[in-house]
């Protein structure tokens, strides 16, 4: 059966492949010091009053000093963007701490060492996986980033030709960050993309916490960073086929995801759904009749501190995604980001307060993250008012989803990762297609004009966003579900029942999170 499917797929590939890897004619040279990155060419048309190409040509001989100075200005301009991108990348890296604290705080003390350990190691495992194949598959054919001085040596994309249109599937340059990409622009991109990928990789650790074997987790860490994340990211950010549905099929500007509601969060959330489904609920989570028991987290201050760390790192996540400190849209992006988080926290708090009598702070914190996840895709394209609306809806959606996942689907998600990242990742993508106001995004993905959503007169952009949500869910869910089922045969996913009851710390990671405190293990 499986053999037949593989054969059919191979056959289909052979028939469909019109043109394989595309090689550019002249390959630019990598620049490992950055001395030649940022030139007068980066000054041309940089701002409203900047010199045009005609100006530059005209004054080249009569004003040689100005030409030289233009080179320096260009270098500075690119430097500002590179510093901005790197510093924002460092902020995103700090979100690993936020995830670690949130997930550990929302789970039980007997598993604190294990939960924290997964969050720490996913950083290293994910990074190495991304260094080996992930970055090359994602960005190898992206064509670089003009705001960072080029990086045009990322010029190899595996393309399938269907209906006479090119469908970029994955990049093929930059494995192990070898000499062909030993370049400051490319490495800046690597750092920034790496920390985003790691955000995705750490999301499922929360949904599968307190019962996942470390061995299986390690396999997972390599799989998602080397293959799953990079493929979808290529399709949206690496010049792949989803980004081109605008140019090819007239769907708005193609799929747009400013900072990764779908690329990062929905991928993580859907992987979390597949994982939580396959691994099953924690012992004692559901009673015999199916009603859920609450299993309160052991350290609410830690968890809430983690959520605030995430909110802080998110400024890097969203505003950094301009890849340009010189793009002053960053202020709009940052304000939109914080407004949506406030809307999400407030609406989730009110929802729980009205429905259950108390403002459940763990849900309010989840609501804040839900608002942040939702605004991640549209943050560059919408108004502050729309951002609050998007955040408020995200907070309510979060509460409804958490209750639905637990009461109806009977899936145990200790930290709410499926609802925060999966559901609100999808909502963020759709909200871009609804609220984009047409002030930003000219020529994005090779489509003329600014980005407009359904409410501003372009229903086709909403269509592209719907397509992205469907593709993300189907691709990530199917691949991750199969992965977890197969990997379970290699290294068992779930710890033995007695280890789960005793706590995973000693059995799985050799050290107890809180050795000098007696921990109440009789609690469910």
């Amino acid at each position: 059966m499986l053999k037949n499917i593989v054969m059919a797929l191979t056959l289909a590939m052979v028939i469909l492949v019109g043109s394989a890897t595309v090689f550019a004619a002249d390959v630019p040279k990598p620049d490992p010091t950055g001395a030649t990155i940022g030139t007068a060419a980066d000054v041309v048309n940089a701002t409203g009053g900047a010199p045009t190409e005609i100006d530059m040509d005209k004054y080249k001989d009569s004003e040689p000093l100005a030409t030289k100075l233009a080179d320096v200005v260009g270098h500075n301009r690119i430097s500002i963007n590179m510093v901005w991108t790197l510093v924002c990348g460092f902020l995103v890296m700090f979100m690993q701490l936020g995830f670690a604290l949130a997930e550990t705080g929302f789970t039980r003390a007997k598993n604190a060492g294990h939960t924290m350990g997964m969050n720490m190691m996913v950083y290293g495992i994910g990074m190495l996986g991304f260094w080996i194949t992930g970055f090359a598959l994602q960005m190898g054919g992206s064509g670089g980033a003009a705001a960072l001085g080029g990086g045009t040596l990322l010029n190899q994309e595996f393309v399938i030709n269907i209906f006479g249109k090119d469908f970029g599937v994955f990049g093929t340059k930059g494995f192990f960050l070898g000499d062909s990409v030993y370049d400051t622009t490319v490495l800046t991109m690597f750092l920034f993309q790496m920390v985003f990928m790691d955000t995705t990789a750490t999301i499922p650790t929360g949904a599968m916490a307190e019962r996942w074997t470390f061995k299986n987790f390690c396999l997972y860490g390599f799989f998602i960073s080397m293959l799953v994340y990079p493929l979808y990211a290529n399709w949206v950010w690496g010049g792949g086929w989803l980004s081109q549905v605008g140019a090819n099929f007239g769907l708005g500007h193609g799929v747009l995801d400013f900072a990764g509601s779908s690329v990062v969060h929905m991928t993580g959330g859907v992987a979390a759904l597949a994982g939580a489904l396959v691994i099953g609920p924690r012992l004692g989570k559901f009673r015999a009749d199916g009603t859920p028991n609450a299993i309160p987290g052991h350290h609410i201050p830690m968890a809430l501190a983690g959520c605030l760390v995430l909110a802080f790192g998110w400024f890097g996540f969203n505003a950094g995604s301009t890849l340009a400190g010189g793009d002053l849209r960053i202020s709009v992006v940052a304000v939109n980001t914080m407004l949506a988080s406030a809307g999400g926290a407030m609406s989730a708090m009110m929802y729980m307060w009205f429905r259950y009598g108390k403002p459940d702070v763990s849900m309010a914190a989840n609501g804040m993250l839900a608002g942040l996840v939702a605004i991640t895709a549209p943050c560059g394209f919408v108004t502050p008012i729309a951002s609050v609306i998007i955040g408020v809806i995200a907070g309510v959606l979060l509460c409804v989803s958490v209750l639905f996942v637990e009461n109806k689907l009977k899936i145990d998600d200790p930290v709410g990762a499926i609802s925060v990242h999966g559901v609100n990742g999808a909502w963020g993508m759709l909200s871009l297609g609804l609220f984009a106001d047409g002030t930003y995004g000219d020529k994005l993905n090779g489509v003329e004009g600014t980005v407009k959503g359904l409410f501003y007169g372009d229903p086709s952009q909403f269509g592209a966003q719907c397509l992205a949500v469907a593709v993300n869910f189907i691709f990530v869910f199917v691949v991750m579900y199969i992965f977890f089922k197969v990997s379970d045969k290699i290294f068992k996913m779930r710890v033995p029942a007695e280890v789960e009851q005793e706590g995973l710390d000693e059995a799985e990671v050799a050290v107890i999170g809180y050795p000098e405190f007696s921990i109440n293990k009789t609690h469910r």
Partner: protein
Amino acid sequence: MKKIEAIIKPHKLDEVKDALDKAGVHGMTVTEVKGYGRQKGHVEMYRGAEYQVVFKAKVKIEVVVNDAIAASVVEAVRVAANTGSIGDGKIFVVNVEEAVRIRTNERGESAV
């Protein structure tokens, strides 16, 4: 000699300690304990699901006193620990056969 064991609400510890001091008791042993009584704990909601708090946190105070002041000590604790609401705790009085001060080897009532 009598041992007086009082299980009280944790936030009442300071008041009970001061009351004991006034009543002439100048040493005590305190333990953090958990337990439940006729209420059998209570139900809370977390993330939309119920959970039962069966064992409530309490503080157990143990003092050993001379027979002469035992009754007044019990009364001092009872008054100081009383809030009038459910879960104020209980006091137990038991006979003590012998007491030894380890440092000096004093015995009986002079050792407490």
